């Protein structure tokens, strides 16, 4: 069973990461906190360019902790698992910026100490989830507080002091940035303190944590299936897997070419439907 899990591509061939971090996230924590606070602005306050998504935060954090490749892989995994957590209506999604930043920083810290990277990745995400939930609560408080800002600006505007709109906006931006910085700093410190418990685990626990990484990919795929699919498209998914599998295994088509082909077919389908839209 062990070999069954270890043949997957999500599980690394080398059990010891070759280029782990330099051992501790703490020397970089001010810089990491600033980065996460800056990226947190993108979640809601400024633009929503998706710079706060795990796939971007992961490699950036990894770059600061000396392991961009690990950051990218972890960012991809977190992106996939929480892909269906959408900010619709008043729903507050998980704070994936803090989750990814803390998880990548902790995994980099642990992976510098000659332990299985797959286990460190799973463990780090597990530690980062409650910290991200705390950050969500802080966000909730801030948004409740925004009601007061709004009423203040309204009162000032009715008193013909329209400049209040400008400085309230700046004050709120600063408030969100500070909240991001403080929660990131607190979360990184907490992760740094809890992290070493990892080294007390017996080898079998580490083995279990490593298995989880492949299963987490299945969880990510389920999130996509849950969000995008219905009964009509189930057959379409099955046929797509069969065709791609045949191309990959029987025809031995290269992976890059498969990605390009999938993109081309996907684009054609989208344009076909879009074209139908214009004519109707």
């Amino acid at each position, binding site marked *: *069973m062990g070999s069954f899990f270890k043949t997957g591509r999500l599980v690394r061939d080398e059990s010891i990461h070759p280029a782990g971090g330099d051992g501790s996230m703490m020397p970089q924590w001010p810089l990491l906190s600033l980065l996460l606070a800056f990226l947190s602005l993108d979640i*809601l306050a400024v633009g929503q360019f998706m710079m706060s998504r795990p*796939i971007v935060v992961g*490699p950036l954090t990894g770059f600061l902790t000396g392991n961009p490749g690990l950051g990218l892989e972890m960012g*991809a995994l977190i992106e996939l698992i929480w892909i269906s957590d959408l900010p619709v209506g008043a729903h507050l999604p998980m704070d994936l910026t803090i989750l990814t930043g803390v998880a990548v920083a902790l995994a980099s810290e642990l992976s510098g100490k000659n332990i299985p990277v797959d286990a460190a990745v799973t463990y780090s995400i597990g530690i980062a989830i409650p910290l991200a939930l705390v950050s969500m609560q802080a966000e909730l408080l801030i948004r409740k507080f925004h009601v007061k800002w709004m009423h203040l600006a309204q009162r000032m*505007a009715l008193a013909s002091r329209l400049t209040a709109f400008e400085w309230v906006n700046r004050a709120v931006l600063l408030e969100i940035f500070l909240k991001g910085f403080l929660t990131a700093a607190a979360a990184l410190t907490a992760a740094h303190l809890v992290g070493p418990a990892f080294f007390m685990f017996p080898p079998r626990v580490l083995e279990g944590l490593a298995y989880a990484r492949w299963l*987490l990919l*299945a969880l990510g795929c389920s999130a996509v299936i849950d969000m995008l699919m219905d009964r009509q498209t189930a057959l379409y998914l099955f046929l797509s897997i069969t065709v791609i599998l045949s191309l990959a295994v029987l025809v031995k088509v290269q992976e890059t070419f498969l*990605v390009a082909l999938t993109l081309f077919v*996907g684009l054609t389908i989208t344009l076909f439907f879009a074209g139908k839209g214009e004519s109707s």
Partner: protein
Amino acid sequence: MNPEEKIRTAPVLNRLVLLRVFGRTFFLETVWNFERYLNYGFAFVLLPAIKKLYPPEERPQALDRHLEYFNTHPYMASFVLGAVLRMEEEKQALPRLKHKQKEDEINALKVGMMGPVAAMGDSLFWATLRPYCGLLAVTLVLARTFGSQGKAWIIPLIFLAVYNAAHLGMRATGFLQGYRRGDQVVLTLRRYGFQRIIRGLRLASILMLALLIVFANLSPREMDPGLFVLKLAFFAAIAGLFTFALKKKINSSQLFYAVLLFSLMLAFWPDISVRPAAP
């Protein structure tokens, strides 16, 4: 028609003001609040135009009108903002007697459009385009297309470029179309056929998901075909189980810990875990 009642249609907002208003649309959700959601952002975005269109003594009331409840999708709000700008211009060209009527029309447009536009934006951007871009990025990571450490920045850049091309395009188009068409922008929105684009993008996403599933189970090394089929079947069964759990409103974080627990059980299961035989 009485000259007093004639509508002046020439725009009074110059390009600089329009550009400033458009720039502010990126701050629409800064003061998002639980009482009136995007109301502050809406008024904040319109402020340069209000300063241009109204004399100082009328500005507070004009701004206050836009502090009513407003909630929609942040990108698609550009359609509403553009249309409201045009209608505010038209209002100022009307005789004073008709101002109240125009104000009611503006409010009706905001209330009438915010729901449908939010539904379109949520479906198109949050539930379709962002997952598609995310899937593309994850698939590229699994394919190890840009595998080496030095190229880790390429995949996030692709993700941002693809997503923001659509995002910024929609913001700009929405703002311009709204401003050009005013209250007729609803007809323009219908012409875009967003539902069909969403349908096409969802099919493209499912295709990408199929590729991701294959990549997740393919081994970089040679692998026994029987084991591969077994692995794919196991993966499908687990994914089916997770999908069922998600449908039952168990969230991803809870399932994450369930996976950890299951994995630990596997590791401690004496008959399953393959260990080297003792010498």
